[in-house]
């Protein structure tokens, strides 16, 4: 049961990450437009600072998937926390775009609550950077794993299958 849930969370988080990055870029584009800032000009670094943690985590997800790091894939706590972070960012985006009860949504005529979203950028960055950090730690931990131990585990599984 835990294994199935773990796989589901792993897939969901990988699926949500690029979607949330696109939504964040969408909001940031209008935010810059309102403040007369050019994305690909003077303010590119500011734009990059918001997108960088997403890109970093996407790269790490690709690394996890292709190099098949089991320490990350099998860590239920890490996958559950990652999914929760994605959920929180999804709520940030949803409320900035849809929550009409926050009255600044109505103010600028863009139908986006920029003030709320810019308040949430800092926690968003913190969560994504720290997740990337722990992902890197888990990858390194995986590399340091004893090959003998792995060999023993594989043999044990094989024997169990044979008995069954």
């Amino acid at each position: 049961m835990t294994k199935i849930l773990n796989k589901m969370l792993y897939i969901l988080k990988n699926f949500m990450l690029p979607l949330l990055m696109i939504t964040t870029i969408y909001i940031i584009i209008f935010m810059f437009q309102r403040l007369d800032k050019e994305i690909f000009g003077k303010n590119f670094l500011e734009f990059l600072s918001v997108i960088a943690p997403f890109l970093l985590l996407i790269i790490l997800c690709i690394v996890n998937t292709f190099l098949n790091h089991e320490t990350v894939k099998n860590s239920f706590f890490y996958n559950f926390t990652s999914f929760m972070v994605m959920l929180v960012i999804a709520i940030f985006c949803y409320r900035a775009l849809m929550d009409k009860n926050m009255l600044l949504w109505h103010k600028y005529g863009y139908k986006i609550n920029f003030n709320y979203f810019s308040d949430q950028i800092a926690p968003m960055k913190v969560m994504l950077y720290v997740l990337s950090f722990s992902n890197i730690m888990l990858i390194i931990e995986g590399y340091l794993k004893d090959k003998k131990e792995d060999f023993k585990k594989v043999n044990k599984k094989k024997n169990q299958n044979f008995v069954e």
Partner: protein
Amino acid sequence: MKKFIREYLRVIAYTATGLVFGIASFYLLMNYYHSEEVSKPLYISQNDVDYTEYKTKISKIDENLKRFDSMKSKNDELKTMYSKLISCRTVMDGDKTLSKLKVDNYFKPVDIYQLGSSFQSEVLNICWAMHLSYLTSDTPPVSFKEYAPYISSSVKSITNQINFALDEIQNNSSYFYTTNITSSTIRNYLKSDYSIITDSYNEFADIVLELSESLNEKAGEIND
């Protein structure tokens, strides 16, 4: 040694993940709480009184305009004023301005905001700026010259009041209601903003009512 480093790295990784877990849980719960607070309706008992007052004024304006229509005055200045008051009255009784007042005594913050912003966009921008602002121009109509200073100062104070109220209502957006005091302060502001907005509606209705009454007086004087 390798095993020790491995264990150590695992501890660091899970501590960092635990930290993120804490932050994410905090923001998840805070957002849920904030969205609940922001959409919670307010009970305003005064609404019946304000709504009835406003409606009575509009019906009095209707009576005055009907009376003027029956007099069939040929004075151009009065006729212009009559047509402007007719369009103004239609705007004042429009769905956008009154629909929110009609509902009941429970108001969401967004209802109060929309009531205020429709006062700005409908009553001030259309009724005042498009139709009645000529009364305070450099060359006001002779028949209504004496009203210019009174109307000018009233509209100015109404505009300031409504801007202040709308700015204050927006307080509810970016701040989490971290304590009960913050929450009740924001709700108290909302109540006072509501009364500022309804007072503005009623004050503006007073101006239009006075103009409609003076329209009949002037028409009567000319006919006599």
